[in-house]
């Protein structure tokens, strides 16, 4: 299939306004008379609030209000939660008790942020400290301190899924291994913190909201918590979001600011500062350990897998427990593994709550899985690539259904692996590594082969909570052609750098054969919007792209119908080219784009009877694989499309400091048809950089007394251009049979395989010393400690089982 615009190198629609400094982020929204919020945070990980004295703060210059949990919780509803745990309530302000250090206790509103901060320091809170639990394993122990005593346990979710004859596989297999892999608490940490501005109009009884948001059902949840009808909340989606990658879900912030704006009758804005964001912004990511068991034969055939995953969501839960559910849809990775047991446990501790992070739990799972593959290879003395090649699903096996009931749409995994190895010149790389080792260095090659499930519905909610039957997960687009013949696409959500305006323009231009550069894309607000579920789960190329194409096809059909009516022929007799319609075989019988548009808007006498005048079409569509409920065994299809990535990375480690340096990086990537390759590549590069951070640097570390130790960019280390090397992506294209143009999702690409590949490279480098490391982030200190252990004992050890 050849396309006019799809897949071509084309400039994006968004870039020019950003390079001019003319983006409009929430911190740029200045409402007349706007007031500013600063927050008072708990210094304790767990405490009873004995008293809050606000007089001094209220007396401070420019202060309008000091709000505490007592008033706020009485007048708003608890935020929604992804699993069935009604006692695990959550508000933006603590009421009665605090459950983590950094939790917001009071909000101060003043004329400026500086004055609000001054006054916040004058709020006097008296606490009675309570016992707390920081370690997730301790939190699972009988008799552990309860984070939410009314819930009766610290466990939010637990189930053991068994798909296929797992016990039999483990009995019959010739070999078995077991180990623990640990994924450190990190997150996406966008450079823009979360922010929200709100304004209540007493005349219209409506709350207007501008927010740095990426969240499904955000207007609905805001309205519910504020006890307002849905149509009293209007979210403006034309706010540029300064990065999100999952976490920009400031629902608690928004309910707080919305409440304040309504109560004070003044526009109110909260922009988190960096510490508020890191400590009280509730946007930490998965903090997970895996107890992995693999059963396999001497020839490398993998027979079965047992995964126990424990995820520490912190002190409250929104959708975070569901990050254990997405991996169900790719539970055996890209491999043919006939029997899998999966035992996810979501546990609470007195830490900052978790939010959705790029990949929604898939990257940690891929990391554990890929460590398992490398460990199997090592156990057998088999080449890691040969082991993967043996077990990877073959091209001719698609569509391929895995034990947990999900069907992978398409792929050619072996071809992508081959391309990646060729691009890095693998034999030469092995020689380079071996030469470095002979020279006394520590050098390793890492490989990972992983999946990116994309474009799915939200049925993990259903899987983890039978009381929830949400299987619909649509997206929409409106396309209109105005009197001048100009085309406008209307999308229904905000974006955080994914280039959705370019996506819509490209797809609409492709269908209508009109130059995308001339197509404008705007955003509805939540009251004028068609349904959307926002850019989550790598879905927009599939779902928004599909909706935009669907709407454009309806426009094209309308134009053809108008021409057919005027030529008194059938549509089949007509030819469409660049917006003009002519009679087949008689090109002089032609109605141009302009003429057709004029008829549609001005000449009802030339319109087919019954046809709507004007030229506008909406298209709402749902996930192409539908929305079936899970089977009783928990088998389910959530995602229609599966992209594949093969990472090959070369790492050298400084023996004296433990410092790893990434010398070479290639990622083979197949996400089907790319709508705009620069955008796909960009997100993949960024995902790899983010994965480098998760593998080596980034951690929300906690002290034993429950304090966050990395609340700034001095100690939470985001990779810079020094740590991220030159990256190379090699494309492959296996179209999806399920989508409009063969596209698959790609917003989480790179991040899903990078930590796994880097962990495998570091372990390959350490292998000659007989030590290994299965805990992320693999900081310099942690690597150095492994090296020192090897030197001390002179014998192989590993750290499995230790947390």
């Amino acid at each position, binding site marked *: 299939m050849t396309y006019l615009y799809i897949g071509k190198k084309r*400039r994006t629609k968004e870039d020019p306004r950003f*390079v001019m*400094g003319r983006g409009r982020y929430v911190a*740029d929204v200045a409402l007349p008379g706007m007031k500013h919020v600063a927050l008072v945070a708990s210094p304790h990980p767990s405490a009873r609030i004995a008293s809050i004295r606000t007089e001094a703060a209220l007396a401070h210059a420019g202060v309008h209000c000091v709000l505490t949990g007592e008033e706020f919780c009485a007048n708003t509803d608890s935020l929604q939660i992804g699993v069935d745990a009604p006692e695990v309530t959550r508000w933006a302000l603590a009421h009665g008790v605090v459950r983590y250090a950094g939790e917001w206790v009071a909000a101060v509103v003043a004329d400026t942020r*500086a004055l609000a901060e001054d006054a916040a320091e004058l709020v006097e809170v008296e606490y009675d400290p309570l016992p707390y639990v920081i370690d997730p394993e301790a939190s699972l122990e009988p008799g552990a301190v309860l984070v939410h005593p009314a819930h009766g346990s610290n466990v939010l979710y637990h189930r053991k899924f068994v798909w296929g004859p797992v016990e039999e596989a483990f009995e019959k297999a010739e070999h078995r291994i077991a180990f623990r892999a640990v994924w450190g608490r990190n997150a996406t940490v966008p450079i823009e913190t979360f922010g929200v501005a709100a304004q209540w109009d007493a005349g219209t009884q409506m709350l207007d909201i501008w927010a740095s948001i990426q969240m499904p059902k955000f207007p609905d949840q805001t309205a519910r918590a504020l006890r307002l009808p849905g149509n009293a909340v209007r979210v403006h989606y034309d706010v540029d979001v300064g990065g999100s990658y999952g976490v920009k879900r400031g629902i608690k912030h928004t309910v707080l600011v919305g409440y304040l704006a309504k109560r004070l009758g003044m526009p109110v804005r909260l922009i988190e500062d960096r510490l508020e964001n890191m400590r009280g912004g509730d946007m930490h990511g998965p903090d997970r350990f895996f107890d992995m068991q693999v059963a396999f034969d001497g020839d490398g055939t993998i027979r079965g897998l047992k995964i126990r995953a424990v995820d520490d969501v912190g002190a409250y839960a929104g959708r975070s427990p569901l990050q254990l559910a997405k991996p169900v849809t790719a539970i055996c990775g890209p491999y043919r593994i006939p029997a899998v047991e999966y035992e996810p446990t979501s546990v609470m501790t007195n830490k900052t709550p978790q939010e959705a992070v790029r990949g929604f739990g898939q990257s940690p799972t891929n990391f554990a899985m890929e460590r398992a593959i490398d460990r199997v290879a090592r156990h057998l003395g088999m080449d890691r690539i040969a082991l993967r090649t043996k077990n990877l699903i073959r091209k001719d096996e698609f569509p391929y259904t895995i034990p947990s009931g999900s069907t992978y749409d398409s792929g050619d995994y072996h071809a992508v692996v081959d391309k990646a190895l060729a691009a890095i010149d693998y034999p030469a790389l092995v020689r380079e590594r071996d030469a470095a080792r002979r020279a006394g260095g520590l050098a390793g090659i890492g490989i990972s082969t992983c999946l990116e499930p994309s474009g799915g519905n939200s049925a993990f909610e259903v899987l983890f909570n039978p009381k929830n039957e949400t299987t619909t997960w649509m997206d929409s687009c409106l396309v209109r052609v105005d009197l001048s013949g100009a085309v406008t696409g209307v999308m229904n959500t905000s974006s955080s750098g994914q280039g959705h305006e370019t996506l819509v323009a490209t797809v609409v231009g492709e269908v209508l054969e009109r130059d995308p550069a001339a197509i404008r894309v705007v955003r509805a607000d939540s009251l004028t919007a068609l349904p959307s579920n926002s850019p989550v789960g790598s879905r927009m190329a599939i779902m928004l792209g599909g909706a935009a194409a669907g709407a454009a096809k309806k426009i094209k059909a309308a134009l053809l119908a108008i021409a057919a009516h005027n030529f008194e022929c059938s549509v089949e007799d007509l030819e469409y080219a660049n917006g003009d319609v002519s009679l087949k075989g008689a090109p002089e019988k032609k109605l141009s784009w302009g003429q057709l548009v004029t008829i549609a808007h001005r000449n009802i006498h030339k319109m087919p009877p019954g046809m709507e005048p004007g030229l506008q079409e909406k298209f709402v569509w749902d996930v192409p694989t539908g929305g079936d409920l899970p089977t009783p065994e928990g088998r389910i299809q959530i995602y229609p499309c599966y992209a594949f990535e093969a990472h090959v990375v070369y790492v050298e480690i400084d023996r004296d400091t433990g410092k790893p340096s990434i010398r070479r990086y290639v990622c083979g990537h197949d996400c089907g048809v790319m709508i705009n390759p620069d955008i796909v590549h960009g*997100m993949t*590069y960024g995902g790899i950089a983010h994965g480098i951070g998760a593998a080596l640097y980034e951690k929300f570390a906690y002290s034993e007394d429950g304090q966050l130790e990395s609340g*700034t*960019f001095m100690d939470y280390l985001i990779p810079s*251009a020094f740590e991220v090397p030159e990256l190379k992506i090699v494309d492959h294209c296996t179209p999806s049979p399920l989508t409009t143009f063969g596209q698959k999702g790609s917003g989480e690409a790179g991040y899903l395989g990078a930590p796994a590949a880097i962990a495998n490279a570091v372990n390959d480098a350490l292998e000659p010393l007989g030590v290994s490391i299965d805990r992320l982030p693999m900081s310099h200190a942690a690597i150095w400690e492994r090296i020192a252990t090897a030197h001390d004992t002179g014998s192989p050890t590993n750290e499995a089982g230790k947390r």
Partner: protein
Amino acid sequence: MTETLNAITVEVNGVPRTARVPARLSLVDWLRDELRLTGTHVGCEHGVCGACSILLDGEPIRSCLLYAVQADGHRVTTVEGLAQPDGSLSVLQDSFCEAHGLQCGYCTSGLLIAAQALLDANPHPSDAQIREAIGGNLCRCTGYQQVVEAIRLAAERGAGKITP
């Protein structure tokens, strides 16, 4: 409590601006909130991310770490001052669009400032020099790959000295 105000005169993007500011007002807050030059962004307010980078007398600095009063008598260039006199994109800005050296755009102003300062001083930098020059600017979206490509392209296309 009323704060003492200090008179300042700063040349911002070629235009002299005067103001009376409290001593504790940071330069970035003055630029953004008072002058409404919102192209300069704030990511950390502790001098690490580089999103707030501006040129002070042609040198890249972090405007979150400077008070507005400290800029008195100096020349400031923000991202809004990078465009050509007729308002069209500079070679560097255009190269960022061509190479798609950005995504969400939040870090972009700071990267453009760092890159312009580099190209002003060294019109033909190596890749290593480019990475060195942007090493203090965090970007979460791009992994820096297309940023480096954009700056390389700008250098090839002669993104000469354009800052005032």
